[in-house]
């Protein structure tokens, strides 16, 4: 009998009846009757539904926080899943994370609490160093309307020095999880590049699922029930990350979280920006290829990839082709992907010579907010002049926009304050922002120009400007 198999709070679950495309949140609350996990929004933005998952073929203690509202049950196959109900110790005592929240009076209405517990659990389990920044990064995906967070932050601090605590999986359980049983109907997770290509070729209309942070919304919010989903998550080749002499190569199923250390290394501004995409829960699920493939005008990685002259390798059964990310995006939410084709690799060339990379994001809230404006610049300065510049904006046109007029007025000219006089007019030609709930058109235009001024301060050799984040 085809079935999904996973561990739930340390116990085997074999699901034959539950639909593999049901949201994990609904599954937990209505099928498993574990109601500790809450729905606050069903759109991946409040964190009340946070659970933790670990992949036993890796370090089985490495639990990652994820939004259960954005996941389909099929994605749990082969994972060890932890919910708030599974945390208390064997003797019935509280998990240190739970105890810390009680001790700091960090619960009021308590509705957000299970989600915070699970984010903090994964944070603690990972043994990260507990700094202010690390705490906010771990909590950015969890909203609390009651406490004002101060006691929750305090509870995180109290975890410092406490050893991670979770019952390890028994060896035979871990081994059993790693073996794939028959796949359930309607949810396929191919185990090789070839198998993925064939599956997609046979069923080009199927949903191609990366992390599900976009498609998952259709299930949890729009209440669609897809009948055919093909997941990229189990294709080993797509998980590859290669750092070569000239590029960073990211497989098509590499999550933001997995890419982050490498981005931090090679393109720190890109890394810093990715830290502001969604929340940690989202970044643990979502893939960079997924961000590309949705081709949203506000996809945060797109301007960066275009500014960096990144290329993609697209594959289908008949072979592979290469193209620039700039060409890959063909219109508003449109890409060059042919039926049956998928993103195999994203190649980001290393910075060469004097090139430097800067990326800025503007939104109402620092964390987990969709950009009003995003700007990415690859600039090289030589002898006080702009030797080369690629400037790309998001949020100011139906697709990520190369600011070619801007590039033209600046390239070859001295990089001084006189140069800045021309930028407003140039950008007015390059960008066609609209006004909406995120910002008015005029704010977008003003801010887009001011980000060039910030770029100037940051790159012109004098002291970089003070940034709010540094205060």
């Amino acid at each position: 009998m085809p079935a999904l198999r996973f561990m739930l709070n340390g116990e085997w679950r074999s699901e034959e009846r539950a639909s593999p495309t049901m949201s994990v949140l609904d599954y937990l609350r209505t099928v498993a009757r574990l109601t500790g996990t809450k729905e606050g929004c069903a759109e991946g933005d409040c964190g009340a539904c946070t659970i933790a998952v670990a992949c036993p073929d890796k370090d089985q203690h490495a639990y990652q926080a994820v939004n259960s509202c954005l996941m389909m049950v099929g994605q749990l196959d082969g994972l060890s899943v932890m919910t708030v109900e599974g945390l208390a110790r064997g003797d019935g005592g509280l998990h240190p994370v739970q105890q810390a929240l009680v001790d700091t009076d960090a619960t009021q209405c308590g509705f957000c609490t299970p989600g915070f517990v699970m984010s903090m659990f994964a944070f603690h389990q990972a043994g990260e160093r507990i700094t202010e920044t690390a705490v906010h990064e771990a909590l950015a995906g969890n909203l609390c309307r009651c406490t004002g967070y101060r006691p929750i932050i305090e509870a995180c601090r109290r975890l410092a020095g406490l050893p991670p605590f979770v019952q390890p999986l028994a060896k035979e359980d871990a081994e059993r999880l790693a073996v794939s049983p028959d796949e359930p109907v309607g949810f396929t997770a191919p185990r090789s590049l070839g198998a993925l290509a064939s599956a997609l070729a046979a069923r080009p209309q199927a949903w191609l699922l990366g992390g599900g942070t976009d498609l998952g919304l259709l299930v949890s919010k729009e209440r669609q029930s897809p009948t055919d989903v093909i997941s990229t998550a189990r294709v080993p080749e797509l998980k590859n990350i290669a750092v070569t002499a000239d590029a960073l190569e990211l497989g098509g199923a590499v999550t933001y979280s997995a890419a982050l250390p490498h981005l931090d290394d090679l393109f720190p501004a890109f890394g810093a920006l990715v830290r502001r995409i969604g929340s940690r829960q989202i970044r643990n699920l979502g893939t960079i290829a997924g961000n590309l493939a949705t081709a949203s005008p506000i996809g945060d990685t797109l301007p960066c990839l275009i500014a960096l002259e990144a290329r993609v390798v697209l594959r289908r059964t008949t072979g592979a082709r290469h193209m620039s990310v700039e060409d890959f995006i063909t219109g508003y939410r449109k890409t060059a992907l042919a039926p049956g084709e998928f993103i195999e690799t994203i190649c980001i060339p290393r910075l060469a010579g004097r090139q430097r990379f800067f990326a800025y994001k503007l939104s109402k809230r620092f964390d987990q907010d969709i950009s009003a404006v995003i700007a990415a610049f690859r600039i090289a300065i030589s002898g006080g002049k702009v030797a080369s510049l690629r400037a790309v904006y998001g949020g100011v046109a139906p697709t990520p926009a190369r600011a070619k007029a801007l590039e033209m007025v600046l390239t070859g000219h001295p990089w001084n304050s006189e140069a800045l006089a021309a930028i407003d007019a140039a950008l007015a030609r390059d960008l066609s922002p609209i006004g909406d709930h995120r910002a008015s058109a005029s704010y977008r235009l003003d801010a887009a120009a001011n980000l060039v001024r910030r770029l100037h301060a940051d790159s012109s050799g004098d002291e970089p400007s003070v940034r709010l984040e540094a205060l």
Partner: protein
Amino acid sequence: MNTAPLARTRRGAHAAVSHDSAMGHVTGRAIYLDDMAVPPNTLHAALVLSGHAHARIRRIDLTRARRAPGVVAAVTAADIPGKNDIAPILTGEPALAEEVVEYVGHPVAAIAAETMDQARAAAALVEIDYEVLPAVLTVDEALEKGHLVAPEQKMVRGDVDAALKRAPRRMSGELRCGGQDHFYLEGQIALALPGEDRSMQVYSSTQHPTEVQHGVAHLLGLPFSAVTVDVRRMGGAFGGKESQATIIAGIAALLAWHAHRPVKLRLARDHDMEVTGKRHGFLFRYDVGYDENGRILALDMVLAANAGNIADLSPPVVTRALCHADNCYFIPDIRLRGLACKTNTVSNTAFRGFGGPQGMFAIEAIVDILARRLKLPLETVRRRNYYGIDRDNVTPYGMTVEDNIIHRVVDELESSVDLPRWRRDIDDFNRTSAVVKKGLATVPVKFGISFNLPTLNQAGALVHVYTDGSVLLNHGGTEMGQGLFIKVAQVVAEAFHIDVSQVRVSATSTGKVPNTSATAASSGSDLNGMAALHAAEQIKARMAEVAAARYEVPAAEIIFKDGRVFAGNDSMSFGELAHACWRQRVSLSAAGFYRTPKIHWDAKTCTGRPFFYFTYGAAAAEVAIDTLTGELRVLRAELLQDCGRSLNPAIDLGQIEGAFVQGMGWLTMEELWWDDKGRLRTHGPSTYKIPGSRDVPPIFNARILADSPNREATIFRSKAVGEPPLMLALSVWLAIRDAIASIADHRIVPELDAPATPERILAAVNQLRRAAS
């Protein structure tokens, strides 16, 4: 019999006891309404909403929806057996739209089906034929057209026109503050179970079970006694579940009535934000007269609230705005006009502060502007205007401020933070930083406690002592996370001098304590604490009689102490005495009741003593803005809040911090944005941004004012705490103004409304730069 030894220190009133559900919260075992096991035949409901801001309903066709899989009931206003009116104050406010829809999101029909997905799918099949009508979408337009949901309220003292003319200086202007979504993490939800004999049991996530009871009874044409409403806890409410919960529960009950089966209605977040009301945005037009010293001599101000499409609670929200437009200041001649403007948007409602924050926003902005014009420190100007102790101490509504401690509170705050030095640090920073600018500001707060309408200031409680000495407490207040249950339990523990762990609080139910007021206006522990004390005192007196007879001493000599009952050296445990009472056939159960003394209010003249007392607070905040982008960070906040003799400092501290951050959200990043069709485009957390952990100032100190018992005889001399600290967040907004003003060396008054989003901040920066050049 309970002979277990007490915890070493007995925990009663004033102890920093954790929330009674803390363990349940962290383990996920605390049960919210959607977590309850429901009968297997329960149906799930979905709403059909108007897509138009204003339209006449020509025809509703439910045929296709009724035929959809799983559908058991589909209803419109025509299916209401009783009266289609759930107005909390006035009348004529339907649960389902009749004839016209008046906002995008107005519920028109509802479906109950076997599953939630079936209900939602069927809802999409309901066909409605509309005749679209012109819509009024803004306060400005409503004002111009004179569209109001209730008559104007006027609060007048003295001769404003003459005083304005006489004043050496005068200025006028316009200000705006936005509304705010409650964003309680648990969305609106209700479960209705039809009972025997034309009765209805309703579980509702509501702050006002009695109003839900009335609403359901009206809709179904039942006597109140046939409807029972229970609520154990809410996942947050903040005023959003005061009147709004009635809509949800009412529709669930209507569906259950027709389906003869239990019905659960849980709104998805988008629907929750589209259908239910929010904090009122306000437009203020002021004309103020003052002198060179910054003394305010006269104020003429219109406070125009965006009420939305119906009155709901807007009239009292406006009243409270009028009652707080003085904040801490004596304004000799004053005329305040409060208007609840009718627009074709969702009907706004109660939200923590209930108009108070908006009124205070206006006067604090005005004081800031005039201080900047006079180039005087804001703190100096405020001091010149504070209510006096023996003179200049009567509010515009005629209430004498008898308990004024604002001078003390402000002094304590200012000296504890070394304000002059802090100011110097900010100025030093700004001198060397070209792009990022810092700002600093303080704010004083005086907030009146009691419902403005005297009738509402009453409460009931029920206390049972069992023969093992355990105590069951029930009262009319609801638990939404604010810690009311633990506080009232502490009161009862204090009365019997037992540990609070011996007191269990049960779910609020209209079947146990009837005719309750909403748990609102910060009054929960004041009212219910007193009612519970009254109940406990009755039982205690009877128990003392029994003990007195047993030990052969006068009852007056019986002492309850630390879980035991003493007569001289003789003693027995509280449980033993309870058992003895039972044997002697003495009742161990009592109902308590309380009504707040001293208060009265004349709504026609807007005068009286609406508040039993005031609570006070002060805050200082430091912010930094990026003048290229308008981005903001709040760097430091120092809060000092008067809680009287706090009933529970741990709980009160949580209220102070939480309210402050919520207020900060209202004034900075939380922006409600409607498009030109009247559609709310910020209807979920992906588009409507409430503060996250990083937005909390890295230096954040909240303190409770020490040694400050309430001078009025409130419950153990404590003070209410739910709402007042929200207004401390005005310091953040004022600090942003200060940061902007620093660009032109504080020579020019910045123009900034709320919320101070990056966009508004950048616009204010640019405007000020233009003015400076």
